[in-house]
């Protein structure tokens, strides 16, 4: 933990500590939220909500877990709750379905059409959710295994394995499509 944050927390200056926490963690929290929510606007909203929860709970933070681990756990829970809350209102039948993932990817991708990219995102949508989140986070975090492990609260070896299996599965999924295209 940042020593300055630690000092403010120990002295009960929670508002000052919170200001420093936001500055230090906002980008990582946003990227973690983005890897789960998949849309920028939804990720920003979830990140805001996560920080509101951090603000409420900061006086009760006892330092048993690392501050970052604690903040990322709050962020993950906030995102998953938001996804559960949204589930009945999504117009597509199943938000985890490849079609829904593809639709979300298209919304996120903006107006410029890129069939290859869209196809890859559609294939990515076919992976299990934990593999998708790990992959998105890995590239958001500039290929840092450590950052992914910390954000997802997983051991480093588990993250490496997860990322490897995800990319291997994507290669396997892409092969028949490439054969068809050829």
């Amino acid at each position, binding site marked *: 933990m940042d020593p300055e944050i630690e000092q403010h927390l120990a002295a009960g200056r929670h508002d000052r500590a919170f200001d420093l926490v*936001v500055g230090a963690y906002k*980008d990582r929290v946003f990227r973690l939220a983005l890897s789960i929510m998949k849309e920028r606007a939804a990720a920003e909203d979830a990140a805001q909500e996560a920080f509101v929860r951090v*603000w409420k709970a900061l*006086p009760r933070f006892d330092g048993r877990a690392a501050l970052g681990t604690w903040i990322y756990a709050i962020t993950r829970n906030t995102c998953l709750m938001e996804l559960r809350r949204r589930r009945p209102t999504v117009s597509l039948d199943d938000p985890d379905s490849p079609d829904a993932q593809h639709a979300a990817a298209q919304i*996120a991708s903006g107006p410029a059409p890129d069939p290859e990219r869209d196809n890859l995102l559609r294939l990515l949508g076919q992976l299990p959710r934990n593999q998708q989140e790990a*992959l*998105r986070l890995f590239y958001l975090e500039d290929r840092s*295994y450590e950052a992914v492990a910390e954000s997802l609260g997983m051991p480093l070896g588990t993250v490496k394995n997860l990322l490897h299996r995800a990319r291997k599965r994507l290669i396997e999924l892409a*092969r028949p499509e490439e054969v068809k295209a050829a």
Partner: protein
Amino acid sequence: MKMVTLNGACEDYEFDVAELVDHTLAPEKARIVSLHIAGCARCRRWRDEYAAMDTRLAHALPKPRLAADFEWRLAARLRARPPAGRADTRAVAQREYAELMAGLRERLRSAAVGSIAGAIAAIGCVLAAMPVLIDHLHFSLDAQASSALFKIVTAGVTVAALAWSFGNGVLPGFRLRR
């Protein structure tokens, strides 16, 4: 394109090839894996496929940056929250506790007033009855004295009971509870 699958000895390198592509393999291990790849067409193809997928993913996945006004909006959101937020939880609990105690004190005060009124009424009745009793107890009680004594005692008990009931909120229509 012919599908690449790693079997036998090459399978042992599969994970290492992935780490080689990610540049996270220890230098000595990277040298060993690179030597193997140089002499193994299957592993070379696997590495190329893996690296191509890595490049495609890096290109395809968006990397938006957080909006510049994120902190400003967060601060505004926190300012706009009702006081029952973080540190105010204790204040809310204290306010509820104070209201509860005030209610209890009010009830106790009403009960005390009622009890005192009842006691005064009872004492008053006894004092009022005393001269009559003294006058008549010298002699044996006749019917008239017994009747007067009975009426006085009855009235006293009734007043005392009414006062006690009022004070304790037992009497219908006179409950003091909020």
